[in-house]
């Protein structure tokens, strides 16, 4: 089961903080992060990658769905 983090509408650094929290709590799960700005997309991607996840970005209407999987 993937863990979903809804970080839409949140400003810096909350999307990153919530992603990090989800990673710590669910180290073996796939994490899906919803964000709605380019800034958050970049920040969350950077933090997920630095924690050993590979990130796939899906563009939905006006928002991004970041699928973070462990390993590459």
């Amino acid at each position: 089961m993937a863990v979903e983090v809804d970080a839409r509408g949140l400003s810096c650094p909350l999307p990153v903080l919530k992603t990090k929290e989800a990673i710590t709590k669910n180290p073996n799960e796939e994490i899906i992060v919803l964000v709605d700005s380019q800034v958050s997309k970049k920040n969350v991607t950077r933090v997920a990658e630095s924690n050993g996840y590979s990130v796939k970005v899906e563009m939905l209407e006006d928002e991004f769905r970041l699928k973070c999987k462990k390993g590459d």
Partner: protein
Amino acid sequence: MKKENILIWLSGAVVGLLAVLLVLFGNPLNMGFCIACFERDIAGALGLHRAAVVQYIRPEILGIVLGAFIAGYVGKEFRPEGGSSTITRFFLGILVMVGALVFLGCPLRMMIRLGGGDLNALVALIGFIAGIAVGVYFLKSGFDLGRAREQRTFSAWVLPIVMVGLLLLLILAPVFNPDAGGPIFFSAEGPGAQHAAVALALIAGLLVGYLAQRSRLCLAGGTRDWLLIKDSYLIKGFIAILAVVLIGNILVGVLGITGVNTPAFNLGFEGQPVAHAVHLWNFLGMALVGLGSILLGGCPLRQLVLAGNGNTDSAVAVLGMIIGAAISHNFMLAASPKGVPDFAKYAVIGGLIICLAVGALNREKA
């Protein structure tokens, strides 16, 4: 090096370089850029406060907002959003300005002052980091001003349009009241009378706004992200500003370059330009700025850039800072090279208490 890292180093370096150049071309010493001081000058130019030595419509501020606005459209990142505790952000803007005008500078000028050898800025930096650390504690314990929502594009255009209006006021300098002066007031002496040419200052602002939008440069975010998640991305910009200003000031001296004002590296506490050496209040003033900036989600520079990029909450925070500057001067809360007035001390303590309350009372609902 990754493209992203090049961008943040470059942004910091360009800000630092322009800070030195703007002094050579007329800005006050150690004040090539200062978001707080320049917003205060704008408040004065609009007659919102009567401190005659700090009244001027600073094109740098207008340029930063418009540069970020252009970058937002060019990079398809422009995004009208708002509605996250807007009124709270307005008052946080006021408090950040109160703190900044006790130290006499925003976080950006703090680094520029440090690069000029002003050790008071080092005292302030420690206070700034302490304030950020308190903010990080709140972030870790669930602080959150709530989600922003999509807004109408019109709202997001309001502040950029106001900036164009200010530019017109600066260039046309209309006089409605020949006896009293106004509606626009320009300092005849003091820091407000020292400025680089309009076109130069505007271009410098546009460049900084553009780059800062691309790189997300934020003077408070660097320390915050390092303390919070050991992320060193933003702090690179912070370091680049300091390094380039420091090298620039020393080079100006070594090469014997002179300008309208000549920047210099002059290590010490006393006799620093547009500064005072009251350590406790330099420390606490910037602690208030640090904490307030974390609660706002970014330093004063970042608020301008976010506002240009469509964030109407940041636009309101900017307006809060301008009103805060008027309040600071009208209520005798602003420090000067002569020292820190007693009222300022109460205001900073009061501001810190309010920020602590904002931090403690705004948590995400489970």
